[in-house]
C-alpha cells in the first residue's frame, strides 16, 4: 500500500516536471514520442526491448525549427569579424611580416602576428604547434597573421594587404622519405620520427620458420577530412576586468581551457569557456584553433571578436585522419592457422603531433586484428611531414589497420583456397583469449556475431 502511494507521488511529480518542461517549449507542443514505460530487465546477452525502439532526440525539435543557436547564429553588440591569413607555402622560414598596410584598410580595428602571443605553442601530447607561425611555416595551412575588422569582407580584403617575406625550405611530403636519416628535419630535432611503439609476443622468426606459407603485402590509406557541416567557430570577449569569455564550438572545453590559459599566460580561473551546440565534431573539434588569437584581438580592440572558418580554412588548416603505410607479413599453416605476424606501421602525422601519439598507440594495439596469434611483432612510428596535420577522428587509428588486416586476411584465404569466413572462424578470438598486449578477454562473441551477421545478410547467397 505504502509503495503504491510512493509510486503515485513519483509519477505525479514526474508528470508535473514534464509539463513544466513542455510549457517552456515553443512554438506548439505536439505529443511526445516516449519509450514504453515498462521496459523490464532482460537476462544477460538477450536483446533488451529498447533495441529496435524509435527514440527521439531531446534537441531534435529545436534543430527542426531552426532555433538552435550555433556560434555563427550569435551576435554581440559591436562584434568584430576576424580572418586568418594562411601561409599557402608548405615549408619556409618567415623573414618578415608587415601588417601596416592592412591596418590602414577601412574597417580594420586590429591585427595580430605570432610574436604577440604570450606562449605561442600548444598540443595535447607535445606542445609543438604554434597558434600563428612566427618563425617557421611547416604546412600550407599554418596561420601567419590575423585581422579583426567590422565586416567579414573588410577582414578578407585586409588579408590581401599583409606582406610576408619567406625563405623557402625543402619540404618533405612522403612519410617514408621523412623517416630517412638524411631527410630535412621539420622540427629541428634529430629525427622526424617523434613517437614509436613496439609490441613483441612470442618468437616471430621461429613462427615464420614453422609456417607453410608466408604472405607479404603493403597497404596504404589516405588523409580524410572530417568536414563537419558547421565550420570551426568561436567568439571571444576580453572584458575590462581582465576576464576572457569564449563561446566556442570546441568539443573538449576543459582541455581547451587549459590550452587557452597556457597560451595567453593567464590564470585558468580568468577564462570562461561556453560550449554551444556543435554542428558536427567527429573528433575534429577537440583542440583549440583560433580561440587565443580572438581573445588577444578582443583585448586589443575592446570588442567581442568572432571568427568562423571558411570551408577552405577547414580543409587546409584543421586536423584530418592519419594516412598510414602498413606493411604486413604473415606466416600461415596449410590448414589456415596464423602462425606468426610481423607488422610495421608508419603514421604520417603531418606538420604537428596533435593526437598522433594516441592514435599510433591504438593502431598498434589493434593492428594484429581480433585473431589469436602466438608470435607477433609490431613496430609503429609517427612521422612529421610538411602536410596538413592529423589528429583525432572517429576510430583513432583503428579503421586504417582494420582495412589492412582484413584485406590481408581475404588475400590469404583466396591463395589458400579457404572460405573467407572459415579462415576467420579458425583464427578469431574466443572466450579467454589474450590480446596482443596481454589483456585477458571476456565475453568474446566474434564468431557468434560473424555467424549471425552472415546468415542475416545472406553471405552464402552473395557468394554465388
Amino acid at each position, binding site marked *: 500500500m505504502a509503495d503504491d502511494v510512493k509510486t503515485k507521488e513519483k509519477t505525479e511529480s514526474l508528470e508535473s516536471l514534464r509539463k513544466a518542461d513542455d510549457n517552456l517549449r515553443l512554438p506548439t507542443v505536439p505529443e511526445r514520442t516516449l519509450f514504453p514505460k515498462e521496459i523490464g530487465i532482460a537476462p544477460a546477452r538477450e536483446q533488451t526491448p529498447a533495441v529496435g525502439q524509435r527514440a527521439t532526440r531531446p534537441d*531534435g525539435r529545436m534543430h527542426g*525549427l*531552426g*532555433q538552435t543557436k*550555433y556560434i*555563427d547564429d550569435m551576435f554581440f553588440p559591436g562584434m568584430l569579424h576576424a580572418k586568418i591569413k594562411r601561409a599557402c607555402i608548405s615549408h619556409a622560414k618567415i623573414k618578415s611580416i608587415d601588417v601596416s598596410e592592412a591596418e590602414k584598410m577601412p574597417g580594420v580595428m586590429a591585427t595580430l602576428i605570432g610574436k604577440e602571443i604570450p606562449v605561442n605553442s600548444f598540443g595535447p601530447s607535445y606542445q609543438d604547434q604554434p597558434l600563428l607561425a612566427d618563425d617557421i611555416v611547416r604546412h600550407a595551412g599554418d596561420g601567419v597573421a590575423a585581422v579583426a575588422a567590422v565586416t567579414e569582407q573588410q577582414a578578407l580584403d585586409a588579408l590581401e594587404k599583409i606582406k610576408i617575406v619567406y625563405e623557402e625550405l625543402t619540404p618533405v611530403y612522403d612519410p617514408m622519405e621523412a623517416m630517412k636519416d638524411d631527410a630535412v628535419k621539420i622540427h629541428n630535432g634529430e629525427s622526424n620520427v617523434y613517437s614509436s611503439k613496439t609490441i613483441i609476443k612470442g618468437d616471430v622468426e621461429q613462427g615464420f620458420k614453422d609456417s607453410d606459407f608466408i604472405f607479404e603485402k603493403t597497404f596504404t590509406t589516405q588523409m580524410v577530412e572530417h*568536414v563537419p557541416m*558547421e565550420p570551426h567557430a568561436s567568439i571571444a570577449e576580453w572584458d575590462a576586468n581582465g576576464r576572457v569569455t569564449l563561446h566556442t564550438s570546441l568539443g573538449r572545453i576543459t582541455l581547451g581551457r587549459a590550452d587557452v590559459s597556457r597560451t595567453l599566460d593567464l590564470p585558468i580561473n580568468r577564462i570562461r569557456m561556453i560550449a554551444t551546440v556543435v554542428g558536427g565534431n567527429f573528433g575534429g573539434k577537440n583542440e583549440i584553433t583560433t580561440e587565443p588569437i580572438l581573445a588577444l584581438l578582443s583585448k586589443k580592440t575592446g570588442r567581442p571578436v568572432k571568427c*568562423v572558418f571558411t*570551408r577552405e580554412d577547414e580543409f587546409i588548416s584543421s586536423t584530418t585522419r592519419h594516412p598510414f603505410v602498413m606493411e604486413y607479413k604473415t606466416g600461415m599453416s596449410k590448414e589456415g592457422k596464423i602462425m606468426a605476424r610481423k607488422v610495421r606501421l608508419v603514421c604520417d602525422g603531418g606538420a604537428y603531433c596533435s593526437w598522433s601519439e594516441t592514435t599510433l598507440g591504438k593502431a598498434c594495439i589493434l593492428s594484429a586484428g581480433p585473431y589469436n596469434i602466438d608470435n607477433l611483432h609490431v613496430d609503429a612510428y609517427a612521422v612529421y611531414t610538411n602536410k596538413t596535420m592529423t589528429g583525432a577522428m572517429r576510430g583513432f587509428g583503428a579503421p586504417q589497420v582494420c582495412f589492412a588486416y582484413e584485406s590481408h586476411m581475404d588475400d590469404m584465404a583466396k591463395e589458400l583456397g579457404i572460405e573467407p569466413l572459415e579462415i576467420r572462424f579458425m583464427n578469431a578470438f574466443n572466450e579467454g583469449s589474450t590480446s596482443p598486449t596481454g589483456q585477458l578477454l571476456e565475453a568474446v562473441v566474434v564468431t557468434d556475431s560473424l555467424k549471425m551477421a552472415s546468415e542475416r545478410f545472406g553471405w552464402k547467397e552473395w557468394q554465388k
Partner: protein
Amino acid sequence: MTDITLTVNGEEKTASVPPETTLLKMLREDLNYTGAKLGCDVGDCGACTVLVDGIAVNACLMLAGQAEGKNIETIEGLSTLEEYHPIQKAFEDVASLQCGFCGPGMIMSTKALIDQGEELTRDDIKDALSGNLCRCTGYTKIIEGVIDAYEEITGKKVPETNPRAA
C-alpha cells in the same frame, strides 16, 4: 549600399546592404533569420537552402539584389505558435537530425519537393535531397522522415523498393 525589399515568410522586409551581399547574409545578419546556415559558401552543402518563389535555392549563391521583390520562405516560417509543421514533426519523431546543422536546409528542400504535389518514389526523394549534405546520419533517417512527412501531408504511400535492386 543598396536598399532591398523582399517578402520573408509573408512579411515585407527592407534592408540596406552592400552590393556584394548574398541573400543568405542579408537574411542572417540584416533580418535576423539565422535558421538558414552557412556551411560552405560555395553552393555544395545546401545548409543555406531557402525557398524563393517556391523553388529551393542555395541562398549563399544568390545575391540579395537578385531576390528583390521575391517571396522568400525560411525555416522560421513553417511553424506557428498554434501549428507544428508536419515535416518538422516527422523529422523530430524519426530523429532525422543529429547535430542539426543541415536540418533547416533539408526541411526546406523537402518542402519544395512535397509542394510540387507529384507522386514520389524513394529515388525522387534522394534526387531532391542530393544538394543537401549531412555528415552525421548517413541519410537513412532523413529519407524516412521525408517519407513520413509526405505520407502525412498527401495521404499517399511511397512504394517500398528492394534496396538490393537499387
